[in-house]
């Protein structure tokens, strides 16, 4: 049921979120998350995102199925970009529609935690001189955040 896209192109977050509710009267809540490329300290020309084609989509679909099994969702859209993304550019969208706000918030947070820790994407830093400055390291904080969803009995 979830719509999952892995693409180079930018997306329209508002249109994606609204599409989940349009023409329906059972949707009470749409939560959407947009992740942007941040420039930490003015030295970043771009982030370059590498991904594992095929597995990236599969892994996001698995995460979405887990969310759907866990909460009563009406719809979900996940878009993750790859390639070069300049500061201020959009990287990822998670949008979730549900009857009520609690499942919509929880599912959106779970999907983001899973995207961070399980979807096969890797970011590296391109400096303003055009030089590749190495791969961004994964954060333990993200692992802890993702562990919330397996630690809970619910």
């Amino acid at each position: 049921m979830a719509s999952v896209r892995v693409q180079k192109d930018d997306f329209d977050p508002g249109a994606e979120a609204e599409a989940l509710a349009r023409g329906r009267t059972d949707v009470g809540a749409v939560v959407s998350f947009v992740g942007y490329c941040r420039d930490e300290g003015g030295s970043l020309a771009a982030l370059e995102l590498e991904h594992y084609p095929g597995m990236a989509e599969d892994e996001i679909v698995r995460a979405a199925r887990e969310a759907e099994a866990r909460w009563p969702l009406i719809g979900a859209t996940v878009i993750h970009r790859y390639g070069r993304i300049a500061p201020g550019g959009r990287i990822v969208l998670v949008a979730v529609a549900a009857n009520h706000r609690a499942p919509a918030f929880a599912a959106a947070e779970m999907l983001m935690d899973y995207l961070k820790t399980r979807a096969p994407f890797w970011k590296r830093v391109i400096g303003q001189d055009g030089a590749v400055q190495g791969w961004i390291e994964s954060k333990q904080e993200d692992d802890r955040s993702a562990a919330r969803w397996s630690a809970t009995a619910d």
Partner: protein
Amino acid sequence: MKALYFAWVRERVGRAEEELDPPPSVTTVGDLLGWLSERGESYARAFDKPAGVRVALDRVHARSDAAIAGAKEVAFFPPMTGG
């Protein structure tokens, strides 16, 4: 089996993919990592800290003790940093 390398694993190995034909004694993901680390300097650099390298079998995350029998595609990559 077809091997794929991503991010700094790809850079250290020096290639994005190749065919692997491990000996019959290599039965788990952990065995495979050990075997690869002994294939020369570039592989040693990529696989010397096996805990740092994640593995997927046929596009599904696999732990060190997972059996590789039957897998057509194995991928090696650092911890993910998407999202």
